[in-house]
């Protein structure tokens, strides 16, 4: 798992639930859950852009890299 998604931290900072974020970025809760649990194979720029907009952050705040 080289790339990690740090949604939890940002959601906590913004006092927002995953359901609320799913509604705001217009993607399903199931897909957002896949992203949150690092099970996604890829992320669209449009999704990343919506997440950054709603969580008021930069892509680097959401994504991390863990060397194997």
């Amino acid at each position, binding site marked *: 798992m080289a790339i990690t998604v740090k949604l939890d931290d940002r959601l906590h900072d913004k006092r927002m639930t995953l359901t609320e974020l799913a509604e705001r970025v217009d*993607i399903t809760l199931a*897909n*957002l859950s*896949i*992203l949150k649990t690092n*099970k*996604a*194979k*890829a*992320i*669209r720029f449009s*999704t990343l852009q919506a997440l950054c907009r709603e969580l008021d952050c930069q892509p680097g705040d959401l994504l991390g890299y863990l060397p194997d």
Partner: protein
Amino acid sequence: MKLPVNSRDPLLSAARIIVGLLMGLFILVGVLVMIGLGAIATVQKNEVLGKLAAAGSGPMGYPSVLLVFALIAALFAIAFLFMRELFRIIGSVEEGDPFRRLNADRLRRMGWFTVAEQLILFALAGIAASFGGYRPALIAEDAMVAGTGAVILALILFILARVFRVGAEMRDELEGTV
């Protein structure tokens, strides 16, 4: 990920009906040929032997007739299997999910069925030539025309199988995209 497909697509509906009818026809003819084979191997054996002797056939005449019937039955059985795979592929297109590894395997099998059919046809032509009623020039011409078509069809099916396999891999990747 399922693609939106019109379930009342006239092409798919027509293909389903035609392929279904052909499957039924191939089963029927295959069964009739098998019944014929059973008959000439048992109750009509003496009659066939008599006709072959009257026609001046050698000792290989009767086994050749049995072999021809068996090969024709095999031909229809393989044709049925080919159509069954095609019928299932049409079904997957109607469901809006054709890019499956299963369909790639089906296309590959259809390619091998085409090769097998052609080999049987060559064997039948060889037997026909041994009877002497089928001119060698005609056999060569038939083999050239039918053989070329079969080789092209088999190649297309094998290549399509690869295309579907790549398509299935791409779909898997797309499914993991959020």
